[in-house]
């Protein structure tokens, strides 16, 4: 077996700068082992001679395919309840109050979780609204969760989650909303019935043309997997989907400002989010 490629300090720095600029994901020195392991794996998989030749492939491959594969490796593709929980704080303390303050009709507030994945995010939104947002007594809220993967949508509809997935659910919510099923936990029927799960491909305009009049979009940790043009197109899609003044939340390593300037940046105490202008200037 050949020895894995050793990444020098200079190479790590070079890679770190490049990767940050491309993805906004920053690795500090404590992540050195994690990064080195994945780089070495990709160097081997692409049959590159060394870091130098791999970096050239990464940087200059016109399809961007390798950059995408490496990004997938470098991101922990895992979801769980109340992930990045500052967004849920922001939803109840800042975003929803801002929406209802200017809402002139009584139509339900609409929230779109894209991607749904296995349902942890939309169910987290549902529990947050029921438990922490007093406005739920005054407003109807619709939660729509979409994904391109029909298998994962079925899993979301069934709503059975592993111990790992529910690790951030506070005990009182676990007791209130979940039933133990073997080693796993199933979310209650009321919540399963409250969320609409739909299949949609964000990159396909025909798929998303019915997705309109949303007040909030959760699109976290998805756009990092898109190429640059697709990210720009997705931004336009979300712009179409949102009501004027609606908000979009991205994952911690993503920044709309690096994708498109069509949204305004809103700095709330809990989080930075992006807002569709109320009128197009």
């Amino acid at each position, binding site marked *: 077996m050949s020895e894995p490629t050793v990444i*020098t300090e200079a190479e790590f720095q070079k890679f770190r*700068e490049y990767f940050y600029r491309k993805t906004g994901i920053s690795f500090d020195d404590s992540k050195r082992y994690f990064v080195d392991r994945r780089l070495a794996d990709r160097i081997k998989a692409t049959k590159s001679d060394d870091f130098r030749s791999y970096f050239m492939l990464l*940087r*200059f491959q016109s399809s961007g395919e390798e950059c995408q594969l490496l990004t997938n490796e470098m991101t922990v593709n895992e979801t769980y309840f109340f992930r990045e929980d500052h967004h849920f704080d922001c939803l109840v303390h800042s975003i929803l109050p801002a929406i209802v303050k200017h809402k002139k009709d009584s139509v*339900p507030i*609409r929230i779109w979780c894209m991607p749904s994945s296995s349902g942890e995010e939309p169910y987290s939104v549902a529990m947050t609204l*029921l438990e922490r947002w007093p406005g739920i007594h005054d407003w109807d809220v619709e939660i729509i969760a979409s994904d391109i993967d029909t298998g994962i949508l079925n899993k979301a509809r069934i709503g059975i989650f592993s111990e790992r997935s529910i690790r951030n659910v506070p005990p009182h919510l676990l007791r209130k909303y979940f039933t133990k099923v073997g080693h796993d936990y199933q979310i209650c029927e009321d919540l399963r019935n409250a969320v609409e799960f739909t299949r949609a491909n964000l990159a396909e305009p025909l798929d998303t043309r019915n997705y309109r009049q949303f007040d909030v979009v959760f699109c976290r940790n998805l756009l990092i997997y898109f190429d640059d043009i697709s990210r720009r197109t997705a931004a*336009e899609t979300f712009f179409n989907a949102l009501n004027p003044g609606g908000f979009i939340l991205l994952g911690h390593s993503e920044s709309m400002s690096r994708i498109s*300037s069509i949204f305004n940046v809103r700095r709330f105490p809990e989080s930075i989010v992006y807002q569709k202008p109320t009128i*197009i200037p």
Partner: protein
Amino acid sequence: MALKRSHIAEVQPELPVQPPHSLPELKAQLASSEAELRRTAILELSKHPDSTALLTAHLKEEPSAIVRETIFTALARLGDATAIASLADCLRTEDANLRNGAIEALKLLPEQTARIIPNLLADQNSDVRILTISILESLRHPKVESWLIEVLEKDPHLNVCGSALDLMVEVGSEMSKKAIEGIKLRFQNEPYIQFTADLALKRINKA
């Protein structure tokens, strides 16, 4: 009030499939005083294969930054020679927003943009050459380093060479060493060039 199950097709009934508007109809819509209508026209135009000329013609007249961004995205998706030429032409404008929008759109199209890079790097206007180097900064193309070497070897302008050298710090390899050493000799009295060239050489030697 509570959580309410929404059936997306019922809440938002399937929009009727409207026949596509003709190019003249969409052109007329581009003249609307309402930005939202102009944006809608652009989104529809981006699906027309023959719309590039119309979009490029409208680009410099469009007053709304948001609508302009939609045009840039549409042109990037179309990505034909007319679109690329139009985007490149924006590098000459005095309007910084238009210029930056064009740079970002060109970066999205590495293969197509690569075809015009040699001409842009030979442009008489040094600002255009500097802006071209800023495109190279994140253009995924194997010739980036060769183009930078050529700039270091041939371009007479200090700021153009400085920009190329900045980028060399990141992408320079053994093949660039001679050009970097050469630029140090060409601009011996320029501390920034000396500093950046030394940094680039140091990085190459360490790699």
